């Protein structure tokens, strides 16, 4: 695997990323609870990056198939998640819009 990343660096990245995540979402209007959950869920499909690395580094077809399956499930999450969130958000209108 790409050896550029030392363990300490990776842990720093983890801590700072978590702190950022804690700060990002504060008060959420109730109208957005469902779309926000769905959108955040789509982002968590970013594990597709790991699947891509696995496909590239896999020495055997069997292992590549594992990678491709992982990629498929992650993309199901990502593509479906973003599209369904967009579908929901597109419906929200203020009064006077119709």
């Amino acid at each position, binding site marked *: 695997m790409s050896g550029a990343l030392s363990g300490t660096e990776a842990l720093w990245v983890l801590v700072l990323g978590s702190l950022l*995540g804690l700060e990002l979402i504060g008060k959420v209007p109730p109208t957005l609870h469902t*779309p926000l959950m769905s959108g955040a869920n789509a982002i968590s499909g970013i594990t597709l990056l*790991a699947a891509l690395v696995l496909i590239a580094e896999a020495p055997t077809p069997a292992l590549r198939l594992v990678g491709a399956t992982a990629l*498929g499930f*992650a993309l199901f999450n990502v593509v479906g998640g973003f*599209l369904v969130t967009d579908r929901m958000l597109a419906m929200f*209108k203020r009064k006077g819009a119709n």
Partner: protein
Amino acid sequence: MGELTLELGAVLLLALGLKGLAKIRTARAANGLAALALLLAVVGLLLQQGLTGWPWMLLGLGVGGGLGALLAFKVAMTAMPETVALFNGCGGLSSLLVAIGAAQLPTPLNLLGQVSVLASVLVGSITFSGSLVAMGKLQEWLGTPGWTQRPQRHAINITLAVATLVCCALVLKGMAVALIPLTVLSLLLGIGLTLPVGGADMPVVISLLNSYSGVAAAAAGFVVGSELLIVAGAMVGAAGLILTQVMCTAMNRSLTSVLFGGAMGAAPVGGADGTKDEGYKNVTSCSAEECALTLEAAERVVFVPGYGLAVAQAQHSLKELAKLLEQQGIAVSYAIHPVAGRMPGHMNVLLAEADVPYDQLIEMDTINPEFPRTDVVIVLGANDVVNPRAKSDPSSPLYGMPVLEVDQARSVFVVKRSLGSGYAGIRNDLFELPQTSMVFGDAKQVLQTLLQELRALGVGKVPAGAGTGR
């Protein structure tokens, strides 16, 4: 350096996207930004590692992405909670598969890499099986059987948890085979933790599992050595925790009572079977015609929509009725309980689908003081969220949950198919109050009869300008 710029750009866009998703004006654009961020991340990674194995990538893209898009376009808005659960479970499964695959690679993993594989397998499995159970409960394929409420469940789950840790230790000692029992046990643990939770609490569970899938992604980031994946996973994991807290606050539940307290109302209440009509004595019922007459004379009307309304696909009829009343100069608003629908904010989505403007949806804390000045409240397919017992009866499982105080209004009509109990299986004192009348029937049919009756009464035919809604 191109990849680095792309990766930094992706992190920035992800942060902006998550932040923007929490504000109504920016939410749609923010969702797009987050999607763009993921695209940039993929492009950056492919620039770095080349296109080795591209047919496999296309395969995953075509099948997974295609099915995801198909589901996203086809799924009914009423089924949103279970859809999110399904998507989330697949994210968890992906992290699980990556970790198992990475453990088979010829390059040996260092200690941090090994621990990350274990974390990814453990959390990925729990996310996967837990999300599927949540989906099954929301689809009502799975119930919450009585035996899941026994106190022994804690002992079973603790045993499972200890066993998974033993497997982890064995893998670290060099027994790679222990990954298999670890996966199985973690999957069982996900089921064991989710099955006893009542259907009404599923949104909190999904939100928490969503946070887990972020953690699983971050762990997968350690495994493959991707800073971007670690940042993004950590960000979603942490934001998911905050979101879970937001959901718990909205539902007035504490996270520990959701996870370990068992299902609300699963134990029989007061000995009587809550699903039977027995036990209700002084119920007044009336026809849609009578309801129409009361509506015609009203000045302020509040609708309380619930999940039953959406199931009957009656949002559009409701919107039509509201429009007719507004033309007559009657003030109309919608009272939205934080947990109306099957997850917080679900009812807002369902009414948005029927083109109801979101500024007509009034939150509970704003509308509750208005009920004493309201002439008519029409409850459509909502039950537990209007139960006055939540305020008065400390022995009720609902006690302490904030409810819409519709019993303060002058008259209340409850549109319902029968006197059956709500999703949580708890009896409702509202039905027996003197000012309450039950209108039995399918929500859509009742609304359409109301529309006909009101039109026959000449409602809505006043000259334009006589009434402007509110």
